[in-house]
Every structure is written in structure tokens, then in C-alpha cells.
């Protein structure tokens, strides 16, 4: 699977992660998510199970989450969170143990969630 997006019948836009969300793909990933959030109130990511994620990937996810919260859209993922996300969360210290004020004080689904 390549980094791409598609629209479902119900209007939800699905973004497929491809095998890496890293600095090489960060600009493209950011552009696709931005366009998706402009086009739909319902955007989700389908992660490749072996996807590799770096700091730039983390930043795009967080930024997209903030943008979605601002515009009243939902931004989530389908299926299980990939190991790559758990790895980068642990290595970068990204784990959220608190609610996120940028996400309407909801728990963070991307980086550990509120405990």
C-alpha cells in the first residue's frame, strides 16, 4: 500500500499510511491529511502493520488532530495501532497521560491516551 487517500460512500476519507511516515514522506502525508480534512468531517488512517514512523510522522498526526478538533472534524484510525506508533511513542517520550486541550480535552488516541 502506498501513502494515499480514498473516499468512502458515507463521505469518510481513508488515508493509507504506506510503509513509512517519516521525514521522506512527511510533506506528502501532511498535504494528503490537510486536503482530507478540508474535504470531509470524517477522516481516518489505515496503518500498514509494519509502518515505520519518526518524529515528523508524530508531528503530522498531532497537528492533524489539532486541526480536526478546531474544525469539528474527527480524525482517528481504523484497526489496531501499529507497532511503529508504539515504538516512536516510547522512544520519543510522546506518551500522553493526560487529556489533550488541543483535542477538546479528550483523551489522546494516538499516543497512549489518558490514564
Amino acid at each position: 500500500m502506498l501513502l494515499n487517500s480514498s473516499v468512502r460512500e458515507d463521505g469518510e476519507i481513508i488515508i493509507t499510511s504506506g510503509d513509512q511516515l517519516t521525514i521522506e514522506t512527511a510533506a506528502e502525508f501532511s498535504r494528503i491529511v490537510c486536503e482530507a480534512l478540508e474535504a470531509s468531517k470524517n477522516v481516518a488512517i489505515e496503518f500498514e502493520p509494519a509502518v515505520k514512523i519518526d518524529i515528523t510522522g508524530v508531528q503530522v498526526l498531532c497537528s492533524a488532530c489539532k486541526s480536526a478538533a478546531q474544525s469539528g472534524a474527527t480524525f482517528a484510525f481504523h484497526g489496531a495501532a501499529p507497532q511503529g506508533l508504539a515504538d516512536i511513542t516510547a522512544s520519543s517520550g510522546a506518551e500522553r497521560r493526560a487529556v489533550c486541550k488541543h483535542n477538546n480535552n479528550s483523551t489522546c488516541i494516538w499516543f497512549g491516551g489518558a490514564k
Partner: protein
Amino acid sequence: MMEEAIATYREEAGELLAELETSLLDLEETPDDNDLINRVFRAMHTIKGSGAMFGFDEIASFTHEVETVFDLVRNGKMTVTKRLLDLTLKSRDHISYLLSCPLGEAVDRSDGDEIITGLRQLVPQMDLPQKGSSEIPAINLPGLSEDDLANETTWRIRFRPAPNILMCGTNPISLINELRALGTAHVVAQFDEIPQLNELVPENCYIYWDIILTTTRGEDAIRDVFIFVEDDCDIKIELIDSSGLIDREQGYKKLGDILVERGDLSPVEMQKVLMLQKRFGELLVEQGVVSPEKVQSALVEQQHVKGVRKERSEAPQVESAASIRVPAERLDQLINLVGEMVTVQAHLSQVSMAGGDATFIAISEEVERLTNELRDTALNIRMLPIGSTFSKFKRLVRDLSQELGKQIEMETFGAETELDKTVIEKLNDPLVHIIRNCIDHGIEMPEARRATGKASHGTVYLGAEHSGDSVLVTIRDDGGGLDRDRIRAKAVERGLLSATAEVSDKEIYAQIFAPGFSTAEKVTSVSGRGVGMDVVKRGIDSLRGSIGVDSIRGAGTTITLKIPLTLAIIDSLLVKIGKDHFVLPLAAVEECVELTAEDVKNSHGRNLANVRGAIIPYIPLREHFRITDQRPEIEQIVIADIHGTKVGFVVDHVVGEHQTVIKSLGKMYRDVKGVSGATILGDGTVALILDMGVLLQAVEKLEKDIM
């Protein structure tokens, strides 16, 4: 940007290797010195860590092996032996080789494998990784001893990377992992500066980190982690817990205190919220004064310190050096600009004096004062302690004496003496040649030394000291000394000296600097081809320096290099002959006296002046430079002291002191004797800078002719 970062790594790793070499050589003399052992370990650790960060995996994996051995030494599980030092010095050379290899290309591992094998033999029980492994193993620090626990300290680190750090090829997580390797760390990434998508530059780094680290390694080790990014990143390191700071409470600071200390909350806001008497963290979030992430980060710190307080007691706090790294080219550019400014300022002074306007003159004098200060400051920036080059000579002595089967040690003094960076660089080759000669020809074999009642160990002394606007670099050995008769015979044989001429020892010894001159019976791998001392002479000449040789047969030889502090700007005396200006370096000038036509007549063409009873020879520069226009009635003799000899230079007028920005002459003038360069005067005309030493040689010849 990545290339720039790699170049910086190479440069800084080179400096670390120099420091490593110095530490190892010092360790040879004091093998129990823990500070030195720690310095070796730290240098290795930094080279390794930063190497891995910039993709120098070969360096990282090789250095890890050596570092692991020194970690055992550091922990008292191994002792420093000569074999260990030999292998570690070889490791230093191998790292230097790896550093010079293009990144990503295949390297020759044979030396490295041999060194690792040697290290394994020293530590047979060690669980070292397999040879040639490209994986960088984690540092296997031994378990914490009671001493370690006593030295544990806890640090609060806020690491805010430069926005372009990722584009420069640096992965902040590598740095965080380096910190984790130092002890127990809790890391919290802060997301509050990540903008919304429409403002996001995806390759920029918006995340910053709060790290609470408990370590036995001290602040230096933490700063070493950031050594290659500290100039561009915002790094705040605070000691938050050690025995010296313990307030003897069982717990740790309250959440609000931590947030206030971090600057995330003002004391006023804290008091306001405290009034509500609810759980403080929740209140802060509810009130919107602090983000949940920041509260979380502070809570992590609180829990971390509470945990470690049970175990450790004290740790030193080390001051960090306040310095920045500036490329040498920028300094060169600064010196050039200052040089131009000095020239313009001279013009300004000239115009203001000619105009006679008091206000204008006052402004001009103020500009002159500021220009002088600027010049001195700019020149000082380029000054480096000469000791930075001493370590490589210690290594040279160590390796060469081993090769030749001699027992030689090196003693240095005046390492703190400062010289211009360019001068230090250009001194390297002459010093290598002189020291090689000391070792090969000067110091005798141990048995020969014992036979003459000397200690079997020979010593080469290398030192530096200030002398006016110059630095005297002295190289002395306690070897056999120069063979005056043999040098003379060889010089006569080569037609350099007349067989019947009466010449001083100094002149005879000076023959060793003649091209191709050698009295060695056989050529060794070290010296004997008669090339080295010629190179020394040319090298020192190019620095506008001079060489003195003194030797006592059987007791040793002393070579003294007199080197100007800087090659850029000098204080000088501006003089005039006819319509032309000349410049004499002021440091050697002692006084100026008048020379009347009658004095000239009384000297009967011998060019000798009677100055308060002392007979001073002089050179009439007018004749020397064949200036033919009208000679003034009263001339001036500028008397200078050159290598202890007083000599006069006759000029028409002494204009006064002058800041001379030295410009080199073109290749066409390279062989002109007695002129070392030129300068541009305020009115744009050119004045030649006279080389008084060379002109003195003409006077000495003149004296002999008279006698």
C-alpha cells in the same frame, strides 16, 4: 546542511582525538590519575555517540570497544598498563583514519581488528561484541556501586531543538537515547508548539523535550551528548537533586514549586489557584494556566526524584565553559577588515592633522583609539595556546624513541603561551624536523649515555615564552651536542666556508640550515638526508622569525626560534628616504639619533657612529636602496637591537610610529634580500617593510671587510 554537520563532527572529533592523545600520554606518567582516565573515557564516549548520530557507524562500533575497556579501568576492574596505552594510542590513530575516510565507503578494518584482538587479550573475561559487528552495542555499564550511588545526581533538562535539526540529519531521539544511556531517565515530549496543518512545515521540529535524568556522570557527560547541536539548540540543564541540595525531606518539591521553578507558572498564578484548595494539578488544568502536558511533565519529575532520593547522596556541579565555535575563515575575514580599517584610520589621521580643525582632530584621535582596541581584540581572538600542539610532539618522541631503541622523554613548559593560529599551524613542520633531529642525532643510545656518565634516559625539552612582540620557542636536548669541527669540515668541503676563515661557533652552527647539509654517516628512516633543517629555515623565514643555535659538545643542543606573535599587523616605525617611505618593526628599535655630515666625515667611510661612547655600525639605507636624490644635511640613525647586536639604519627622516598592516610581496620580489613585505599608507602609497635581521648580516660582512 548535512555536509556542514558532518564537517563539524570531523573537526570536533579531531579535537577530541588530540585531547585523547594528550590524556593518554599523561596517563603513561600517572597511570592512577582518575581524572585522566575519565577524560579518556569521556572523549571515547563522545566520539562514539556523535559518530553514531552522524552515520559514522564504523567509528561508533570500533570506539565502543575501546570505551568499554576504559569503562572497566574507570571502575577499578582493570589497571592502566603500557600495553593498554599502546593499544589505545593505536586506536586513536585508527579512529583518525576512519574519520578521514569518505562516509559510507568501505574502510580497511585490519588495524582495527588487530587492536580489538589485543584489547580482548588484555581482558579475556570481557564479554565484547563480535569483531566487525556493524551493530552498535548498548553500553554495558557495570552495576552501580556504593560510590556511584553516593555520586548520583538528578538533572532537569529542557531540550528545544533548532527547527531545522531534522533537515541537518540529526535525530533528536538519538540524543535522548544517549541521555538514557547515562542513567535513569524519564522523557516527556512536549507537543504544545506543534501548529495546525495549514501552518505546519512537516520537516521542521516543533517538539521539545523535558528529561529528568538521574546519573553518576555529572553535567559534563550530559553536555557532551549535545556537543554537536548546542550552538543551534536551546538546552537548559539544571541540577535538581543531589546530596548538597537535599532539603532532608523524604519527598520532593510540590508540583506548583516545580512549575514555578521551570518558568511554566508564575508565583502569582500559583497563589491564586491555591486559594481554591483543590488538587493542584487538576486546578491548573481547569483554570487553563498550565497545559495537561506540562503538569504531566512536572509530575514525572516529582515522582522521579522521589524515587531516586532514597538511594543517592551527592554529586559535583560543574561549570560549563562559555564559548562559541567560529569558523577560522570568518576570523581571517575579520582580521582583513580590521587591517583595512587601520589603513583608512591612518589616512583619516593624516587628513585631520593636515586640516588643523581641532574638532576633526579630536574625532580622528577617538577613532584611532577605538581602531587600536578593535585591532588588539581581533588579533587576540586568533590567539591559541601553543600547548595545543605539544601533545603531538610528545607522541612523536614516544614513538620515534621506541623505534630507535632509545629512552627519551619530553618535557614541556610554557604550554599556555599564546600565538596566532596561523603561526602555530606553520610552526608544526619546523618543530617536527627539529625534534626528529634531536631524537635521531642528538640523544645518544642508552649504553652510550651511561658510558659518559649520563642517565640512560635522554630528555627533549620543548617550551615557549613571550619576549616582546615575539614568542621564543626553545627546543633543547641533553644529547651529544653538535660536532663543531665536523660541521666546519663539511661546510668547507661543500664550499660554504673558506678553510682559512675565522668564523664564530654561531656561524658554524648556522651551516646546518644550508640546503642538503648533513654530517650523518648514514641516512635513517628518521633523518640524515640533509633536508630537514633547510625546511626548518625556510619555514621560520616565512614566519618572519629567526633561528638561534647553541650547543655544548657532550651536553646537548639548544635551538631557539623567535617567532612574531602575529602575521597580520605590527607596530612599526615609519621612516622616509628621499620620496620613499620604509617601515621598520618597532619591537627591535631602541632609539633614534642624528647623523650629521660631520659625523659621516669623521667615520672615514667606515659607517660607524659614536653614540654616547659606544661605537655602533650603521647601514646607510640610501646607498643600500640606491636612492639618488638630495641627501639632507642632518640624517637620522634608527638604532635597533637584533639578536643582541646593536646596529643603526640611516634614514632621511623619522616620520613616527605606525600601525603596519602587512601585505606580502608578489613572487617576483621573493628573492629580494632585506625586505619582508609591504604596507599601504594612509595616502595610498606603498612602503616596504625592512627585514632588519637580513640587513644586519650585510653589516656583519661589512665589519669583517673593514677589519
